[in-house]
């Protein structure tokens, strides 16, 4: 067989192999794809599984940091007239809590799942741009550190996560606080953008033969939709923050009335980004449920096509509802009516997904495992959060409730409900793929029930506090307003929820060391990632799978399916790092893609960029200049055409 593979010519017929018949295949692919051991390997790895796990762990650490911030705030708010925190400290805590949860946890954790799972689900050997993948992670990590750089000196961002002008302008907020937020968000925006580019191109180019667009898992639909949304939405917020920084430090007048600027321009740009972002942090999580639930209901998802279309529809509509965050700003009633109506319409695709999940449970044979409990609990919480969202979409109701704890309740039901619960369930579900071990079921069930009860105990009363008129973002309140007992209950509930999260963390920690060993497919699940060993080898698949249906591993027992998927025989592609490129809709093979190896360029470029932003922060222009120059050099080195990637005219004979 090796005789056929004479070199990297311009055209080649891929060798079809059966790994079961040839024991030399696995070690050979291992040598090609494995990251070298030691620190240098760690810093240069482009393996999507490594990067995915890094994303998951880092995002989860940020979740814990944001949770600690919330715990301190709930201690402050547990009683009236509490003096644990000063107003300045409280402002920084609620701002960093929001920034951390929304930007450093909610999307990155989903990027972690998708980075790890996409190539395995799609039957590929890596993402389309492995080095860009490493770059997006390093940049995320450095932007996260950047956003926290002024926290220890008590100068963290303090104008709320949506950072309205004029409160965030220089006149009212002269410190470095807002500059850190502004520049950190531009840096983080770069990470999000390159990550999104990678997902979009990976979907278009690197699916296994036969994995046509109507066969990809719903998680893939969710992340794809979120990524396309991010490509169009993130520039709005990066631009807004850059303009704010220029207003503050270079005397421009985008947002100040005195110079002819418009404060509301900030709100428009922020929410033009902000609302699509809300869907970006929930749609992939809904995808986790749509893919996980069928495994535990022992049947395919009800209404696959409807759910996929609902996912896309939600995002499209999501670009037309941003003004519902601005109902109280004095815009003309006609535009309020339009945006209110558009917000109501979003209920339709959301309800389609909810009914699909309920029907899947209803008509299936549910197995009450921990992941199932998290997924089912998510549906309950999602419906409550959806109803409160529907209420605030009505202009008169919103006028009453805006800036009260009712909105805080709504957004936590939505974000914890649709993000944290599916993520916790997803970690239980895919833990065998991540680590090769099962998570503890007993502790898992305990953690679910404590989280579920604590969450509802902590956040449901916030609706009541809001209806009683308690505003958001206040650091304390006098007694006698009727808010005392409701706040005590909220704080107790928040701590119960935190206890549940703690149990979950303990379970992860223990199971990673002592959990029962998992086989390839411990849940008897239907999708391709379960056809690989747990954990998967560096090359994912010994041969590229061929896909004939939506549920490749359930074909022998589902009626009405034609054709047979195969993971035991397929294209070998062992001539250096290679995977197959297929057509965008039908996934017909059309090119052999050469993949880059491990590289330090992503890490160097991210460090140089972070230093350049640090130079901008402290107005050290020589530091900025040097770092920008190094960034340019690193980019050129990265993009230098390489013979082995097939970017030059040379013909390489690497395995003569």
């Amino acid at each position: 067989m090796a005789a056929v593979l004479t070199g990297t010519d311009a055209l080649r017929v891929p060798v079809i192999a059966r790994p079961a018949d040839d024991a030399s295949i696995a070690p050979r692919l291992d040598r090609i794809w494995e990251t070298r051991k030691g620190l240098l390997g760690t810093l240069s790895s482009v393996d999507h599984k490594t990067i995915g796990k890094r994303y998951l762990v880092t995002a989860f650490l940020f979740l814990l940091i944001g949770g600690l911030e919330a715990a301190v705030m709930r201690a402050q708010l547990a009683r009236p007239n509490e003096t644990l925190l000063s107003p300045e400290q409280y402002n920084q805590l609620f701002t960093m809590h929001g920034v951390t949860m929304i930007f450093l946890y909610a999307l990155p954790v989903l990027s972690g799942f998708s980075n790890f799972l996409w190539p395995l689900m799609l039957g590929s050997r890596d993402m389309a741009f492995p080095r860009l993948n490493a770059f997006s992670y390093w940049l995320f990590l450095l932007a996260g550190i950047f956003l926290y750089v002024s926290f220890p000196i008590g100068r963290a961002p303090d104008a709320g996560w949506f950072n309205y002008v004029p409160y965030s302008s220089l006149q009212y907020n002269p410190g470095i606080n807002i500059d850190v937020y502004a520049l950190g968000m531009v840096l983080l925006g770069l990470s999000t953008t390159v990550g999104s580019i990678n997902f979009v191109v990976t979907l278009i180019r690197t699916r296994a033969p036969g994995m046509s667009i109507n066969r990809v898992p719903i998680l893939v639909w969710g992340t794809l939709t979120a990524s396309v949304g991010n490509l169009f939405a993130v520039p709005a917020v990066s631009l807004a923050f850059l303009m704010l920084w220029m207003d503050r430090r270079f005397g421009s007048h985008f947002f100040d009335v005195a110079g002819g600027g418009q404060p509301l321009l900030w709100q428009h740009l922020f929410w033009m980004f902000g609302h699509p972002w809300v869907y970006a942090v929930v749609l992939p999580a809904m995808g986790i449920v749509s893919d996980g639930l069928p495994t535990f209901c022992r049947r395919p998802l009800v209404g696959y096509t409807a759910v996929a279309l609902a996912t896309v529809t939600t995002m499209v509509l999501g670009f037309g509802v941003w003004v519902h965050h601005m109902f109280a700003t004095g815009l003309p009633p006609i535009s309020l009516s339009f945006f209110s109506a558009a917000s109501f319409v979003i209920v339709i695709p959301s309800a389609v997904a909810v009914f699909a999940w309920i029907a899947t449970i209803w008509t299936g044979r549910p197995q009450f495992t921990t992941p199932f409990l998290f997924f089912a609990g998510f549906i309950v919480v999602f419906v409550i959060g959806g109803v409160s969202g529907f209420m605030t979409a009505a202009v008169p109701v919103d006028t009453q409730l805006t800036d009260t704890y009712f909105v805080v309740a709504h957004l936590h039901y939505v974000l914890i409900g649709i993000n944290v619960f599916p993520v916790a369930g997803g970690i239980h579900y895919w833990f065998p793929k991540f680590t090769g071990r099962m998570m503890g079921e007993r502790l898992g069930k305990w953690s679910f029930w404590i989280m579920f009860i604590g969450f509802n105990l902590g956040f449901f009363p916030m609706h009541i506090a809001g209806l009683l008129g308690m505003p958001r973002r206040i650091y304390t309140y006098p007694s006698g307003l009727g808010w005392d007992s409701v706040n005590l209950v909220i704080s107790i509930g928040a701590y119960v929820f935190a206890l549940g999260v703690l149990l979950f963390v303990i379970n992860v920690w223990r199971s990673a060391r002592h959990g029962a060993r998992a086989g390839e497919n411990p849940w008897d699940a239907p999708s391709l990632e379960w056809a690989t060993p747990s954990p998967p080898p560096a090359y994912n698949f010994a041969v590229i799978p061929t896909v004939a249906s939506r549920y490749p591993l359930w074909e022998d027992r589902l009626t009405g399916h034609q054709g047979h998927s195969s993971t035991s025989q397929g294209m070998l592609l062992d001539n250096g790092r290679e995977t197959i490129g297929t057509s965008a809709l039908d996934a017909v093979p059309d090119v052999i893609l050469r993949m880059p190896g491990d590289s330090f360029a992503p890490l160097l470029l991210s460090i140089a960029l972070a230093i350049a932003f640090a130079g901008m922060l402290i107005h050290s222009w020589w530091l900025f200049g040097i770092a920008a120059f190094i960034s340019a050099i690193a980019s050129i080195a990265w993009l230098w055409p390489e013979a082995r990637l097939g970017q030059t005219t040379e013909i390489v004979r690497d395995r003569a």
Partner: protein
Amino acid sequence: MPEALYRGEPLPVGSKGRLSSGWWGMITVIGTEASLFAYLLFSYFYVGAQTVGPWPPGGAPALGLAIGGSVLLILGSVTMWWGEKGVRAGKNGQLLFGLGASILLAIGFVVLEGIEWSHKSFSLMSNAYGSLYFTITGFHLLHVIVGALMLTMLFVWTLLGYFGVRRHSTVSIAVLYWHFVTIVWVAVFLTFYIAPRLT
């Protein structure tokens, strides 16, 4: 593998035209960059629409230099298209000539814009219009400079013999970006120089 999917014909290997990941990557870069400029122009029109009094404050800007710059950029796109056509046919000399011409035209554009900037009676700090004018044209200028640097790298790589009739996807990908920079200029030009004359 099913016959309908793959009949065993030879497949191209590596980075090949529109089959390359890089080409699709550039499309997505252009998508996100286009929305960046859309938000920039939205900001211009939003502030303009909300302003009480004349917009632009000093009347519509003079056309002369901007028309000159537009001609240079559009010509630069044409020379680049011609150069890329050359490498597709295996004529590396034509590619070098096209690249060189486009780089010179880009430098010409930067010079004209520099002259226009230095003659403005307002600055970034004068008022919201000044902030928008210098930020938006500045953003575009930055794209011209980055694009010209990319073309310069292509020039070097062509001299090193990296491209030819079979391998030129790097060229096609960068050229796509260069055309995008020209199209953005047309949008900026229409917004700042033509739109105020239509009212």
